[in-house]
């Protein structure tokens, strides 16, 4: 049996995985109740089941119909962008807004294909100044600006 439509094949698998997860978890942990007096597990179970079923249909479709191939999954931008966001979030308290923005800008810029030290540094600086002015001074959001050890 040949996979004629890879995109749909993986999509189907994803749906089946999600659907089954919600269905099984709901069954295991929450009360179903009855159709008339639904418990917390009812809706998720029904929906999870439906999702898994739909996933199956999509999967079968992919085995029968010709479909487009999955384009290449580019790991590099994924990793850099996601790590950049995580770095920002977890470095905000220790390094202050200044430090975390710098980290975010540099890491995300590294995820692109053009990296110019001067350009990125200027961008980072501008972003820090702008953010401090708009968010901390302007909107009074409670962000620390400087790293914690500088207090």
């Amino acid at each position, binding site marked *: 049996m040949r996979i004629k439509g890879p995109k749909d094949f993986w999509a189907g698998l994803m749906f089946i995985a999600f659907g089954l997860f919600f269905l099984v978890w709901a069954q295991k942990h929450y*009360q179903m109740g009855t159709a008339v007096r639904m*418990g*917390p597990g009812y809706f998720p179970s029904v929906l999870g089941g439906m999702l898994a079923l739909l996933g199956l249909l999509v999967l079968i479709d992919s085995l029968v119909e010709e479909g487009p191939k999955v384009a290449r999954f580019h790991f590099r931008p994924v990793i850099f962008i996601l790590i950049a966001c995580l770095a920002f979030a977890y470095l905000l308290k220790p390094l202050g807004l200044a430090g975390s923005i710098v980290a975010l800008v540099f890491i995300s810029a590294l995820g692109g294909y053009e990296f110019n030290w001067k350009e990125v540094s200027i961008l980072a600086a501008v972003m820090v100044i702008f953010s401090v002015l708009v968010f901390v001074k302007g909107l009074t959001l*409670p962000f620390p600006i400087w790293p914690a050890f500088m*207090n």
Partner: protein
Amino acid sequence: MLRGLIAGAVLAFAAGAQAQAWPAKPIRLIAPYAAGGPIDISARLLAPKLQEALGQPVIVENRPGAGGNLGVELAAKSAPDGHTLAIGAIATHAINPWLFDKLPYDPLKDFRHVALMVQVPNVLVVNVELPVKSVKELIAHARAHPGKLDFASGSTGSTGHLAGEMFKLMTGTFMVHIPYKGAAPAAADLMAGRVHLIFDNLASALPNVKAGRVRALAVTTKARSAFLPELPTLDESGLKGFDMTTWWGVMMPAKTPEAIVQRLNTEIFRALESSDVKERLRAMGSEVPAVRTPEAFTAFVAAELKTYGELVRRSGAKPD
């Protein structure tokens, strides 16, 4: 003897000086609820007053989540240096401990209860089409139609919900609880007649009562409310001992120095007595609380904890 006196004086001065060195940096006031709700608003009313009195910025930080538990937990685990305050409420300190299996804080041991700020009664309101004009008639009606009456609440485990459960227990009636997400949608359905009654908080019930869109039967506190003085209390109407309020106040981590706690208590009550704060809190239905000292507040919390533990157990209001 003189040396002793001097030593004593020096010690007292040093202790006073330590208290005077506080606050040394901005103080954060954690509001464990989303921005804009009554608790958040009262925090934002208090903050500028404290800032004036203490000379350091007092910044309100919203930490919503888990019915208030997240913010309160954060406060409990903060450094007890006097720079972290939090608003603790009936939900976080008297009810949630019974509804949640594992609470990451102890409502009595992990906190100093600095000052009770707000106490608001709930009002028993019914839909105008319901043929009852008093609590007595309501009880009779409920007994005649078991399971037919719906009472709404702003959420499972809220004071409105538990007030209803208490009512059912004390009167031996059976009504169906319909939870909503917030007081407003519950009130809307009440006015439309889809539910029959709510134990709504005074602030949101008052406009509807005055406009005649709902009928008020009683208040949940032992004392009558200054806003609806002609309304009897549930206690007067035959449910002896019924006394429920929604309350919240300022708390700090348990090991905060005594001097700081006392100073804050003084400043907070000074703020509460100031005319503008007093007016605005009145608009919410709250008078300056009678429970004044930190010790009294702690005793109050302990009593509330006990009451609601009993109630949750007897009514089975735990989440299934």
